[in-house]
């Protein structure tokens, strides 16, 4: 893909850099998971669980993931009911 000389080439225009960002996010996710894993062995902090299932491995992360994906899926269905054209109220 050739670009005109006057157009600046940006770092993110390279597909391999997009991959780098993706992997960096994966690493960040793994780092975020570390404290919860350590807490299984009572190392970093102690969980004050209210329910037994909160002791499941990475419960809070999974809970967040399930809720968020569920939210988006429900919102997609709701789109048929709630969505209005942008000039609907004009």
């Amino acid at each position, binding site marked *: 893909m050739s670009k005109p000389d006057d157009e*600046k080439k*940006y770092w*993110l225009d390279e597909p391999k850099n997009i991959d780098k960002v993706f992997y960096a996010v994966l690493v960040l996710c793994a780092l975020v998971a570390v*404290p919860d894993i350590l*807490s299984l062995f009572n190392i*970093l*902090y*102690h*969980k*004050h669980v*209210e*329910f037994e299932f909160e002791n499941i491995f990475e419960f*809070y992360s999974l809970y967040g993931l399930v809720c968020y994906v569920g*939210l*988006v899926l*429900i*919102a997609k269905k*709701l*789109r048929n009911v*709630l*969505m209005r054209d*942008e000039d609907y109220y*004009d």
Partner: protein
Amino acid sequence: MIEGLNPGFILIFGALLVPFTSGIIRSILLLTLPVLALTQIYTLGLGSWGHYEFLGLSIELTRIDPLARIFGTVFCLASFMGMIYALHVKDTIQHFVALIYMGSAIGAVFAGDMVTLFVFWELTAISSVFLIWASRTERAYKAGMRYLIIQVSSGVILLGGIILYYQETGSIAFNYIGLTGLASGLILLAFGIKSAFPFLHNWMQDAYPEATVTGTVILSAFTTKLAIYTLARAFPGTDILIPIGAAMTVFPIFFAVLENDLRRVLAYSLNNQLGYMVVGVGIGTELSINGTAAHAFAHIMYKSLLFMSMGAVLFRTGTIKASELGGLYKSMPVTMVFCIIGNCSLPTHRRICLKGHDPVGCGRWRPCRDLADHAVRQRGRNGSFRHQGTVFHLLRP
């Protein structure tokens, strides 16, 4: 500093000087006033000033306690930041009404009685609508009119509640009220309109996205958080607030993911964040009120930042419709970085706030943890709020 002067008056009286200034002098004035108000808050310290007898009512113009002070502090910070953002605007009306609006919100926070609160409450409504009308479009005019009607209705309902409350109790002091009957119900309804309870929320998503670039940033910080403050003062531990708040945290998100106007998306997200605060007030323990105040404090910071970055996009590109935008990292890299910071703080702050194991380590502080556990047992199994506010124990005055 003037002894006992409500810090809000510094901004309101300062606003009267704005029309007579221009250029660098005005910039200095706009930035100095919030600093002066903040200085006033902290030089006064805790206490109560400005007691008058008016038509047989005991007025208390200034009352500073820790709850009021934390909201007053963040309002002054938000004023300062909002003013930096608005310095480039060459519009005397916007500068003038923004200062009146900020001043009346700060004044309302430090009001010791409900009549003073009512006056400032109405003043926030009347002054803020000019930030919407300052867009000077037909759309903004209509949205502003709807906004004004709803806001003034809230004030009228509040006044009705205050009058009934005065008849019942003979007092207009603004302290714990609790939901007991018609009078307190009306007051709760008035607060609920301003804090955008479900079905009372439409004014926010309607009006905020129509305000000017700088107006939206300023609007987003004050009105709703003032309402949260009044709820926290008058209705802590009111059980009905827990389901109301829980509904508030959920339903706006569905609308937010459907919306194309990015400032409207942020307005829905703002509504959702208020839900967390309403739940916190509903739980009503000392810990949860601390958490609510902490969340309100941080929320004003990052939501202003998000509205600022979206404002910059609107200012630069002329549109805020998600479907027409893209690739902005090329032309606005700095804005992108700030926007990412704002977005990260949404879940991060809540995580710190909602879970006990905070980075400053005060979750391990025993009294704090016991209080948290006690709060859960006392108030049912509201897991998400269990340990909220532990961070804030370090920040408390």
